[in-house]
């Protein structure tokens, strides 16, 4: 028993040392390194519009349902709220999932004025994080005519902006091609000013 008690004493003292070195010193040093070499990323990749902080380019931004001038991101289980995160966690054979997908498909098709069969899957499924800013190039292309009409920008201009907001070929290969709606919508907002 005394052997055990002695080990407990050692354990708590070891944890105290570990807490100082690993729990305080290490994150503070990494904070210093981050601010020194990559402060933009370390601070959340914040993009500005007219000098004002407008978004983190890594996180989704909500687009109001009635909006006609911007590109819509994917559905979100946390309603695009960046103070939280998460997925629907609906099982693959859950009827609630197919119901949500059908409803979203009908809504997207009506909004964009296309057939339901033309709506890609990323447009009707919620992401794992709920904060995914990216959509497929197919879903972006689907929205181009509506955004062109809503903004008065030409479809060709918009396609150029879409391709500027698309992941580079290396990232597209390691993951899949992704169009960042947060960057894209900021670019459109800048043009509309």
């Amino acid at each position, binding site marked *: 028993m005394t*052997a*055990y008690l002695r*080990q407990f*004493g*050692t*354990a708590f*003292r070891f*944890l105290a*040392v*570990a*807490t100082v070195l*690993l*729990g305080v010193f*290490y994150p503070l040093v*990494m*904070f210093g390194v*981050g601010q020194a*070499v*990559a402060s933009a*990323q370390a601070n*959340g990749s*914040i993009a500005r519009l007219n000098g*004002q*902080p407008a978004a*983190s380019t*890594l996180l989704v*931004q*909500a687009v*109001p349902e009635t909006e006609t001038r911007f590109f819509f991101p994917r559905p979100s289980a946390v309603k695009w709220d*960046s*103070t*939280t*995160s998460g*997925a629907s*966690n*609906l*099982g*693959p*054979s*859950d009827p609630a999932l197919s119901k949500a*997908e059908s409803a979203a498909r009908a809504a997207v098709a009506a909004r964009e004025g296309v057939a339901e069969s033309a709506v890609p*899957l*990323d447009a*009707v*499924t919620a*992401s*794992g*994080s709920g*904060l*995914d800013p*990216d959509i497929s190039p197919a879903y972006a292309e689907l929205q181009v005519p509506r955004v062109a009409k809503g903004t008065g920008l030409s479809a060709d201009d918009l396609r150029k902006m879409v391709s500027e907001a698309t*992941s580079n070929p*290396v*990232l*597209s*290969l*390691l*993951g*899949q091609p992704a169009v960042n709606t947060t960057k894209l*919508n900021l670019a459109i907002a800048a043009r509309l000013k």
Partner: protein
Amino acid sequence: MQFSFLSFITQIAILIVALGAVHQPLGAYLAKVADGEGHRPFERWIYKAAGVGPDSAQTWKAYARSVVALSAAGVILLYVGQRVQPLLSGGQIAGVDPWVAMNTAISFITNTNWQSYTPESTVGFVIQMAFLAVQNFVSAAVGIAIAFALVRGFARKGTDSLGNFWVDMTRITFRVLLPLAALAAAVLVVAGVVQNFWPTAVTNPLTGVSQTIPGGPVASQEAIKILGTNGGGYFNANSAHPFENPNAFTNLFEVFLLLAIPFSLPYTFGRMVGSRKQGFTILTVMAALWIITTSLMAWAVAAWPSLGEGLEQRFGPAASGIFATATTLTSTGAVNAAHDSLPPLAGGIAMFDMMLGEVAPGGVGSGLYGMLILAIVAVFLGGLMVGRTPEYLGKKIQARHMTLAALYLLVTPVLVLVLTGAAVLIPSVVADAPAPGPHQFSELLYAFTSATNNNGSAFAGISASDPIISSLINVAMWLGRVLPMVLVLALAGCFAKQEPIPPSPGTLPTYGPLFAGLLGTVAVLFSALNYFPALALGPIAEGTLR
């Protein structure tokens, strides 16, 4: 979303090349850390501060006492820390609910990192970095220390000593984990992972509404979360969250990091026992199981017609399948997609990966000792089949060894199956898993498989915060961690005392393709026989519905 075969093959090829390049140097370095003489000045300072006599040797019992003492002390510290969060956060954040705090404490001590709490709303910077992330280092180091002790048992003869736990812990933490984590954290920050201490307010130009961009010391925690095969996310969405895993490069980098140490330890083992081919054989079996299960996962994902729910657009099905396999084959449990929404058979493969006992390559340290136990069983079976004397690395396998090895292999399946069985009999626990049909059983089976194997991923539709289910999970995590460790140390103690016998013509060679095949077969058959009925009721039944 479409499964891209080209993307899959490219990523696997990059991983094979990268892991192939690091496993020798890192493995050799780990062997040097394990066998090293002498202490560095900062280590002497730590020994003094902790009251450790660094040159004293420990028997297996003393070693085990230290492991249990450190784990129990860790649980107390984490529990108290979470409960007094108001003090630590200057009154900003409430204390964590007692049940959730206990669940989280056990979870982080046991390298499980099962998260019944929502980090964004439950824990602040202080708890995350000074309590939870510290255990990401410590629990990882414990796993590696136990692996060192077992390998020393094989390498030594006629001694009671397995080394000194506190010296192993100090060296593994400060010579290996901390420098590697710092390096990885720097890469992650440059690639976009946040590392700050404040939220940022922005104004959404589309709506004019203000939005809060979260902050926190994420990169430093993310690095050790992955490298130490822990898996507890800074954010609720874990590695699916863009601030933990911003792009397809960081995603592949994280998969590499979580496989790096487990795939290097077989080389360490070979070095320490003085036979590289023995280490290479273990490595081949781990690598083969990894490639086979990853390919099965790819097949299960690619065959599903409606991919998208729970997947991130920037990763897609191929990168998420690779991540899901790597995280469940190791004891990591980080996720870059919602496992609950994976196609039924893909979810089943993720479960089976854990059911293999997380040995391909497994958690840091735990993967190696798990695979070595399987090797002992394989030697014994091989000996029975062809009438050879069962011996491994010159140590004769006797009744006592087989008893300990058999107990080790039975602890996990018994806990998983008994606790899952108990869970389905308790109506309030069944109600915690709201999914319809066989998926409800899958959610429960996944939870107890994950907790007992100290994985930590979940079919997260399950709600695990009420007292009954969280107590069952606590039992699974604690016994699933501590019992196997003590059994491994007991086995190491036996081997260390034994004098080796020289190989004879009757010795079954424990290297080369034949033994590798035997070992791989034992690993797969053992888990398949244990778990197939349970899998048939969950993911396999669900897979036949469509």
